[in-house]
């Protein structure tokens, strides 16, 4: 550990250009001085803490300012205040901050130590020895075992698995929970676990220097005279976890700080709130006005010295000329008036934010019991910004939806199933039903599948041929693979969750897909095992929007089963189905209106002869080298016609709980929600409807999907023109606005929605078009961007940040959301599922999207309200305090004489007024949470910055100016020439000081009482306690005892006793308090009457309701029955048909899972799976449910190239 603790920064001099190392040769490797594997995230050690920490603290402007003040105070000519008035607060602030920094650093030390002291087996002197992580060096060979963390960045040498594969989980690194496969070079793989061989291994690696690219690696391995190229596939990175692999050996390439994990960490940008920025501006203004005031007083001093002071020399000799005296006075007043920027401001702000962050952590209504996840404020400095959010950018999968597909409804042969009606014909809400269909007749049924409409199962039992054909199709036409570990315990592995849901539905209704080979499919049809010959899979792609299978039944009948988008299927139906089409269309519209994803199902029987010819041509086409795709397409087109409609399925992409309601609430609070998703357009649109973001009543929904900049621009223009027909000369306006870097809010002539595609977005985000895009998007009520890359997500956020003076929030759950979470003012991570990456880079995290409304409408609003109240009041009390000095200057010869006792100056901010204002800022609420939810409009003032702005600040200053005038001149007039009841002096300086400070304290306390709208016992205690404390401290400090101890420090002896027993002193105190407060009360009352704000109205309502109102009526899900759009959305990707028929998929036997680790889908196929797991559960069980004792659920096993979200 270096003495100065500075070595955590990468050394820049002598940058490494290439890394050379030799296995098992510590001597050689040491010559390069590579970093060892010890990590150090801590900043200080025991000796460096004090100097370093103080150095850091004094880099903050406020602290440095007070240091300068302290130096000024030490100059006797200038010093107008004793040193302790600055030292005491400064020491307190420094101590508090240092204590916080110290605890943080101790925690970092602890976690460093914990990581550094982990044990790993290292091959040293031809033996495996258990060593601490920090002692591992570059070039060592180490052995990892299952479920161990990877110690450093390693070159994989060999593993226990066939083909030298290892499976790793990279959740800590990139947030993806599914397993990745790495494969060692065969030449090193041959070393196996033979210690002797490994110890003899002397390969030399040359590779790139340390860097932070996780996805690339370049290097070569020279071994036994041969050179082998090394790429990322052979590298295990620190931060990963070894899974499903008994052991592996690796060669350490990068250690400690040089690992890619460490190179990647820590550089998150520091976010500041808009209030912070405003506060900085204001503090600068205050400094400006401070200097200005001091100038005035210095000039005043000059004039006084010339006119009066020079004559007064009989009693006070002059040491300096008037000019020099004015110069000194300037600095003396800088010291005296420094309280306009109190040092405690920043500390108090931090305390308030911390407190409000704790409230978020503590909130039971943001705790998700199913995954035992409480909400967490990971950043404690952004709270008030939560009350000002204008734009919310949301991810879809995992955030709005649970990524669970549910077979919800279907239409078979013109009859719709899935809805349940009561005896009056009223449709019932499915979520409230308690009586699911009993599938016990089917031994192979999935117990978690739930369905409520008993009619369908009756139809199956009655052997309705269409219904059977329907489910047979679902059981045959798919690319799902089944795994049966135990007899009857089926596990489906589906590439798309939609398919998984469909096949599971078929399974439960008696058509159980059991297994497949490349050329056959076994299903159990109503208890009878049947094997269909699989003749062809006409695969899915995005143009075809359908897939078909051609099978031969055990009876020898040839059939083509097809499922796909309704529009596509309808074009290919036989004329005879036209009647059925009409009925089914109605059903499809109904499903689409509910936001369900629909697929149409059709089949046709094939002629054996025709098929054999077709098959030959198919074979020909698929082996042809050129134009294979189009030839195949033609063939598919030819055979998929004259189909017979069977019906349609409707799958619900299960939303997270309460998503539509939350979106509705946020919309009422005038928060704009943009959905940014990697999903395809149909899916995204569908979700837009189901979560109430897009609505049927919207005037139009623009879809921008142009493939060239011109197209996109035209589409955007068209949209703008229809939203604002009169918006001519737009482009002129835009250039003008661009120069101002600000776009104003505009109103469209109705409600519109915008859906934009990723490739169009790429053009729209170019600098020439970004303003057009932003304008169009901001005119729309709802914006959905689909197929966007993580980078684009961040770009969209940046765009809004750049041109809109608005606060943005991004919410997401996956690694793909990290960029947007970091870009937005506030990033929110959905915790409790998938990787941790989103949460780790977020500022707030909780388990459910619906908690967002509580975070914003309750916590955010309160935090903002409290912070603004705090700032307003804080500035008020300090300005008032300080301005009195200013007025007094005119009566004391501008001599920088303080009005108050120095002890009062010291303790005013620290003791007498600190707790009451903190109490207000921690407890205040205008209306409680229930009312906040009932009136989301209460949120709007925050977006408009109404509670604290430059105007509010100016009002504060004027108000305190008034108060300070009252506070100076009333005591002045009241004490002028008066005496005590016994004729003795009471107009002396000390009595005057005491009177003024007492008046001040009363006035600011009463003002606080006016500000406070929520008087808890704590508040009352703080306010009264502080006043009591003031008197207690004052009497103590003015007592004989204190004087006897330090005669020169407590010269105010007896003042309290001698003046506070005078009735006119108390009458003056009452008069000033009332005079300070009355105008404020009058103004407020008149304002409430004449132009009440939304808060006033709601508070009035609350008062009328007295008791808490009944909870808002539960809104049932908004359902509509008609739709003119297709509900097709199918998150399937191309290429699986081939995979299934080729038989390339090799299975590894199931390995019993080690307990204590989270459930993970295991990579099963011969290629490395990437992308996020799109887990589907056919039962509506949320994915993030913790059920440790349930077997591995069907997690996605394949790579999902195109199911976006990457």
């Amino acid at each position, binding site marked *: 550990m270096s003495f100065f603790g500075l070595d955590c920064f990468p050394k820049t001099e002598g940058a490494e250009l290439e890394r050379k190392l030799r296995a098992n040769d510590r001597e050689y490797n040491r010559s390069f001085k590579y970093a060892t594997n010890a990590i150090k995230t801590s900043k200080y050690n025991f000796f460096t803490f004090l100097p370093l920490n103080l150095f850091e603290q004094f880099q903050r402007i406020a602290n440095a300012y007070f240091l300068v003040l302290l130096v000024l105070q030490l100059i006797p000519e200038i010093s107008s205040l004793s040193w302790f008035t600055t030292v005491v607060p400064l020491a307190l602030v420094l101590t508090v901050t240092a204590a916080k920094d110290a605890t943080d650093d101790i925690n970092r030390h602890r976690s460093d130590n914990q990581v550094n002291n982990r044990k790993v087996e290292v091959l040293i002197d031809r033996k495996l020895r258990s060593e601490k992580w920090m002692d591992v060096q570059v070039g060592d060979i180490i052995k990892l075992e299952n479920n161990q963390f990877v110690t450093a960045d390693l070159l994989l040498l060999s593993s226990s698995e066939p083909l030298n594969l290892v499976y790793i989980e990279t959740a800590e690194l990139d947030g993806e929970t599914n397993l990745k496969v790495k494969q060692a070079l065969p030449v090193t793989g041959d070393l196996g676990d033979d210690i002797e061989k490994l110890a003899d291994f002397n390969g030399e690696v040359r590779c790139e220097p340390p860097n932070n690219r996780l996805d690339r690696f370049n290097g070569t391995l020279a071994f036994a005279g041969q050179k082998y190229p090394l790429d990322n596939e052979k590298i295990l990175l620190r931060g990963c976890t070894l899974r499903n692999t008994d052991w592996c050996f690796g060669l350490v390439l990068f250690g400690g700080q040089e690992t890619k994990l460490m190179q990647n960490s820590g550089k998150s940008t520091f976010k500041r709130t808009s209030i912070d920025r405003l506060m900085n501006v204001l503090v600068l203004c205050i400094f400006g006005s401070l200097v200005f005031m001091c100038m005035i007083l210095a000039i005043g001093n000059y004039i006084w010295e010339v006119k009066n002071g020079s004559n007064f020399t009989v009693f006070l000799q002059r040491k300096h000329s008037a000019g020099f005296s004015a110069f000194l006075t300037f600095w003396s007043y800088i010291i005296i008036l420094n309280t306009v920027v109190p040092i405690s401001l920043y500390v108090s702000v931090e305390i308030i934010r911390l407190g409000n962050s704790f409230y978020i952590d*503590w909130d*039971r209504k943001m705790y998700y019991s199913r995954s*035992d996840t409480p909400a967490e404020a990971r950043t404690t400095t952004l709270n008030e910004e939560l009350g000002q959010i204008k734009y919310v950018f949301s991810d879809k999968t995992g955030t709005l939806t649970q990524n669970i597909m549910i077979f919800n409804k279907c239409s078979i042969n013109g009859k719709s199933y899935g809805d349940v009606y009561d005896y009056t014909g009223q449709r019932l809400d499915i979520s409230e039903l308690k009586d699911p269909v009993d599938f016990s007749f089917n031994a192979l049924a999935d117990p978690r599948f739930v369905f409520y409409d008993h009619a369908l199962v009756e139809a199956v039992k009655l052997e309705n041929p269409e219904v059977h054909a329907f489910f047979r199709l679902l059981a045959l036409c798919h690319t799902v693979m089944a795994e049966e570990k135990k007899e009857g315990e089926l596990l489906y592995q589906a590439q798309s969750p939609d398919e998984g849901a469909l096949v599971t539905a078929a399974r439960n209704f008696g058509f159980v897909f059991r297994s497949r080979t490349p050329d056959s499919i076994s299903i159990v049809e109503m208890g009878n095992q049947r094997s269909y010959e699989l003749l062809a899979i006409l695969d899915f792609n995005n143009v075809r929007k359908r897939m078909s299978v051609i099978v031969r039944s055990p009876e020898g009948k040839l059939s083509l089963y097809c499922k796909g988008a309704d529009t596509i299927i309808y074009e290919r139906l036989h004329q005879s189905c036209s009647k059925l089409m009409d009925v089914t269309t109605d059903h499809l519209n109904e499903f689409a209106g509910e936001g369900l994803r629909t697929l149409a199902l059709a089949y046709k029987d094939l002629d054996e002869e025709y098929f054999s010819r077709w098959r030959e041509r198919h074979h020909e086409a698929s082996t042809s080298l050129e134009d294979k795709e189009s030839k195949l397409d033609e063939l598919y087109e030819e055979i998929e016609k004259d189909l017979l409609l069977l019906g349609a399925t409707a799958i619900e992409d299960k939303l997270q709980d309460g998503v539509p309601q939350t979106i509705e609430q946020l919309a009422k609070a005038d928060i704009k929600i943009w959905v940014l998703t990697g999903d395809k357009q149909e899916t995204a649109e569908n979700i837009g409807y189901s979560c109430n973001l897009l609505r049927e009543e919207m005037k139009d929904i623009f879809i921008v999907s142009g493939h060239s900049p011109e197209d996109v621009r035209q589409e955007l223009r068209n949209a703008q023109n229809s939203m604002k027909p009169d918006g001519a000369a737009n482009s002129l306006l835009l250039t003008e606005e661009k120069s101002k870097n600000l776009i104003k809010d505009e109103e469209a002539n109705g409600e519109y929605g915008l859906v934009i595609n990723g490739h169009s977005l790429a053009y729209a985000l170019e600098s020439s078009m970004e303003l057009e895009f932003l304008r169009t998007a901001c005119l729309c009520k709802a914006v959905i961007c689909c197929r966007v890359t993580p980078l684009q997500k961040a770009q969209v956020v940046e765009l809004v940040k750049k041109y809109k003076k608005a606060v943005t929030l991004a919410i997401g759950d996956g690694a793909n959301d990290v960029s947007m979470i970091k870009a937005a003012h506030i990033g929110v991570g959905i915790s409790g599922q998938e990787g941790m990456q989103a949460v780790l880079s977020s500022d707030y995290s909780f388990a459910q999207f619906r908690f967002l409304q509580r975070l914003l409408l309750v916590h955010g609003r309160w935090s903002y309200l409290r912070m603004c109240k705090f700032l307003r009041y804080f500035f008020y009390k300090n300005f008032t305090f300080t301005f009195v000095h200013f007025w007094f200057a005119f009566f004391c010869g501008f001599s920088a004489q303080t009005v108050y006792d120095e002890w009062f100056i010291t303790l005013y901010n620290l003791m007498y007024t600190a707790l009451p204002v903190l109490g207000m800022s921690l407890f205040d609420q205008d209306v409680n949470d229930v009312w906040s939810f009932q009136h989301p409009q209460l949120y709007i003032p925050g977006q408009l910055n109404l509670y604290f702005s430059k105007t509010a600040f100016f009002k504060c200053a004027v108000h305190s100016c008034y108060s300070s005038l009252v506070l100076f001149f009333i005591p002045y007039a009241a004490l002028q*020439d008066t005496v*005590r009841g016994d004729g003795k002096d009471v107009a002396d300086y000390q009595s005057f000081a005491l009177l003024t400070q007492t008046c001040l304290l009363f006035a600011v306390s009463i003002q606080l009482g006016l500000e406070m*709208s929520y008087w808890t016992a704590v508040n009352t205690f703080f306010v009264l306690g502080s006043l009591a404390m003031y008197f207690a401290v004052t009497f103590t400090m003015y007592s004989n005892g204190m004087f006897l101890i330090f005669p020169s420090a407590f010269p105010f002896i007896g003042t309290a006793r001698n003046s506070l027993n005078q009735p006119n002193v108390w009458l003056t105190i009452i008069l000033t308090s009332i005079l300070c407060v009355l105008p404020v009360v009058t103004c407020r009352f008149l304002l409430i009457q004449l132009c009440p704000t939304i808060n006033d109205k709601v508070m009035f309502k609350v008062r009328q309701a007295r008791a808490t109102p009944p909870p808002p009526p539960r809104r049932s899900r908004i359902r509509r029955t008609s739709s003119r759009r297709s509900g097709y959305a199918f998150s399937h990707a191309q290429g699986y048909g081939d995979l299934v028929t080729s038989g390339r998929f090799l299975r590894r036997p199931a390995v019993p899972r080690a307990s204590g680790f989270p459930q993970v889908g295991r990579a099963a196929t011969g290629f490395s799976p990437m992308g996020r797991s799109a887990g589907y559960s056919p039962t509506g069980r949320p994915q993030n449910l913790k059920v440790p004792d349930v077997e591995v659920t069907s997690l996605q096993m394949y790579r999902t190239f195109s199911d976006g979200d990457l």
Partner: protein
Amino acid sequence: MKQSNRIKAMVKEEQEESSNRPDNTAFTQQRLPAWQPILSASIVIPMFVLIGAAFIGVGVALFITSRDIQLQELDYTGDDSEHPCFKCRTNTEKCTCSMTFSIPTLFKGPVFFYYGLTNYFQNQRKYGASKDDNQLYGDLNYFTSPSTDCDPYTRDSKNMPIVPCGALANSMFNDTFTLSHTVNGVQKIVPLDGKGIAWWTDYNIKYRNPSITPLINAFNGTKKPTNWPKPIYELDTTDVYNNGFINQDFLVWMRRAALPDFRKLYRRITHDDYAAGLPAGNYTLTIAYNYPVHSFNGKKKVVLSNVSWMGGKNDFLGIAYIVVGSMCVVMSIVMLIVYARFKFGEDD
């Protein structure tokens, strides 16, 4: 019944299991019971009326009390050439002048005798700080080396330490007065009581003489302030308890005034025939005019006054109370009108 118990047990179990569930307390859930006052008409308007009435009441009482206080003010600066003290204005030698005045009715006792100064900046920072509290507390260490706060009144030209040091002490007021009552053409001296005019704490705690007798020995090796005619231990040689640092005139002077125009208690008239007050008649004030105020345009005056329960004469408080009270009442009427005409209703 059984079932509900089971549910309760389940709920309990669940809560025990979920270790991360935040505590359900009023504090953490921000449900602390609280009083939520709002500025409604039913509170604000009556409150204003009440405050208004109370203020007017107090104001009237104060005003009457203040009006009843008798005050006799005599400016003896002598700026006017007609003034008997004009001759003393620039005179550096000892100078005495006298003024006559008459009191028409009985000046009720006890009567307090003040001297007043204007345009005199006792509240100037350097002036006020120019003293040594330790020295005044009788600490002999500070006799020989007074605090630098006293500069330039720390040492005299021969570098001898000055006790008491500092501008404040050096500038002590040194005019003296005699008041005589003309009874049947004969001047009768009104006895002035110089005891008990300083604060008890100043006299007993804050200022102490060194515990050396005779007092003069404590001041060996020190000098008197340059402006003073005699050293501090000779301020009142007749009374040990009124000499040195605890001389009451000195104490009164050392309690510096807050504002540039001030008055300080000089004597009380509590003795003999004048215990009940000054009877009507003619009086002569004889002034030993020493204190120079001419250079800084100051004024000197003598004030005779009696006091009430609320102290000396000051009309301001009474008037202020009446004005503020009336304003309250007026505002309450305005508010009532506004409330009646504009009161915001249910519209949302």
